[in-house]
């Protein structure tokens, strides 16, 4: 159930032709079949349907789930895909700092994130949105432009502000989820159990940062472009109809590595580390630069700090 093979017809334009009408009928029948699947599906699919919440799985069950997912992805993408469930380390609380005086709005981070985290290429999903704002207007997201294009950036008179999940200490998205499909892990990362999410999108309404994204259609990634090193709560390929978000690259950072966006940034505007470690880069930023958090009036207490390194 969770990982349908992609339906063979391409996403068609709104215009209807006879062939499309026939395709619609075919899809309708497929849809009906999908609803009746519980009775008729394979044992593996039934197992996916009845899978418990991630936090309720014991060690053996989790191992089974990971093996099932790994097998499914490997068959689907024709290469070995691993799915880990590396837990949060103790004594670690992840924080992020982004230097607004450096960012030039080149969007390298956006696409590095897409590749690292297996976002759907079509329909397009980006976890990072880079906002272009006028220097004279200050940080004013309501008048920001995310669709700027130019031969070269930065454009005169403008500055740039990438926005992604702010990993709030008081995440409104977690509060509103009716089924606890999203929660804040011990290292502060807000994660989603894609196998538990019902796709009601309350969290998207609640998020003040536009950080949550929905799989409106069947997500697609070319086999060659799939990042095979995945995490259950992070970058494993998502099914249709669930919400996804930035996890600070949970699959990387829980193995000591920097998030992909940090490593790709050509101007070094992105800083990452452990907020509980006084010698970490983020702590240095907080104590030596003046930082601000986005929409502080909403009481979300982001662990994502903007600063002016100058």
């Amino acid at each position, binding site marked *: 159930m969770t990982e349908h093979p992609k339906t063979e017809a391409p*996403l068609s*334009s*709104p215009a209807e032709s006879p062939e499309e009408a026939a395709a619609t009928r075919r899809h309708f029948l497929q849809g009906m079949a999908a609803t009746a699947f519980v009775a008729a599906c394979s044992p593996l699919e039934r197992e996916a349907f009845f899978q418990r919440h991630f936090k309720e799985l014991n060690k053996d069950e989790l191992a089974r789930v990971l093996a099932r997912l790994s097998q499914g992805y490997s068959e689907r993408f024709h290469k070995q895909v691993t799915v880990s469930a590396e837990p949060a380390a103790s004594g670690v*609380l992840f*924080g992020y700092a982004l*230097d607004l005086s450096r960012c*030039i709005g*080149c*969007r*390298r981070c*956006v*696409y590095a994130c897409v590749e690292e985290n297996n976002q759907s290429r079509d*329909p*397009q999903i*980006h976890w990072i*949105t880079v906002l272009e704002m006028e220097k004279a207007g200050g940080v004013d997201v309501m008048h920001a432009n*995310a*669709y*700027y*294009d*130019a*031969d*070269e*950036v*930065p454009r005169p008179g403008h500055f740039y502000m990438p926005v992604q999940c702010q990993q709030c*200490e*008081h995440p409104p998205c977690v*509060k509103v989820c009716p089924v606890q499909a999203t929660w804040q892990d011990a290292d502060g990362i807000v994660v989603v159990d894609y196998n538990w999410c019902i796709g009601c999108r309350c969290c998207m309404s609640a998020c003040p940062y536009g950080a949550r994204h929905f799989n*409106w259609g069947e997500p697609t990634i070319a086999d060659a472009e799939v990042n095979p090193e995945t995490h259950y709560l992070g970058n494993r390929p998502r099914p249709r109809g669930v919400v996804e978000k930035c996890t600070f690259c949970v699959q990387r*950072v829980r193995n*000591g*590595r*920097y998030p992909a966006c*940090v*490593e790709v*940034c*050509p*101007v*070094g505007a992105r*800083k*990452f*580390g*452990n*907020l*509980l*470690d*006084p*010698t*970490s*880069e983020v*702590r*240095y*930023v*907080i*104590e*030596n*630069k003046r930082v601000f958090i986005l929409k502080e009036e909403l*009481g979300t*207490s982001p662990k994502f700090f903007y600063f002016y*390194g100058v």
Partner: protein
Amino acid sequence: MHRLSVLVAFGLFVWVSACGGNHERAAYLRTAPGVAPSGAREDAADAKDFPVPPPPFSEGVFPCSQCHADMTPDLEVRDLGEHDGIELHHGPRDRWCFDCHNPDNRDMLRLASGRLVPFSESYRLCGQCHGDKYRDWRMGVHGKRSGEWNGKKQYLLCAHCHNPHAPRFKPLAPLPPPKRPDEIL
């Protein structure tokens, strides 16, 4: 009736505090009170603390001594001939080659103190003027860092991002904008 309303009020309070409340900010900053991490690497002028890739020389240009060994240093501001690709846009107009390059041994750079440093440690030279940037860079806050957030890090030399002769960061072509919602079909 009164008791009931107290009960209702209490119930409301419990509910509201269960799902809202607790907006204490940034408790993690108190985990190590009084620590000023800015000093952590202040004195660590040991090059092994800053692993960097080889300096970004133009092809065939290094070692400089292969041409300069037998030349007499010329301090005049002039057309550079062999090096005419170099346009100097770095600070005041009277800046010239030997403010940084060493006239006697061109394969080294020279600090204001007269001490020589290799190109692979050019940050010491830049840091003479750009002290604040140097400090941030040592902490991993100025410039790009890769590797492990809690372990080995890969640094870059200043010159990897800033052409030392014209250090302003060059604009880049942005990658494509996201699709607008009505283009996602």
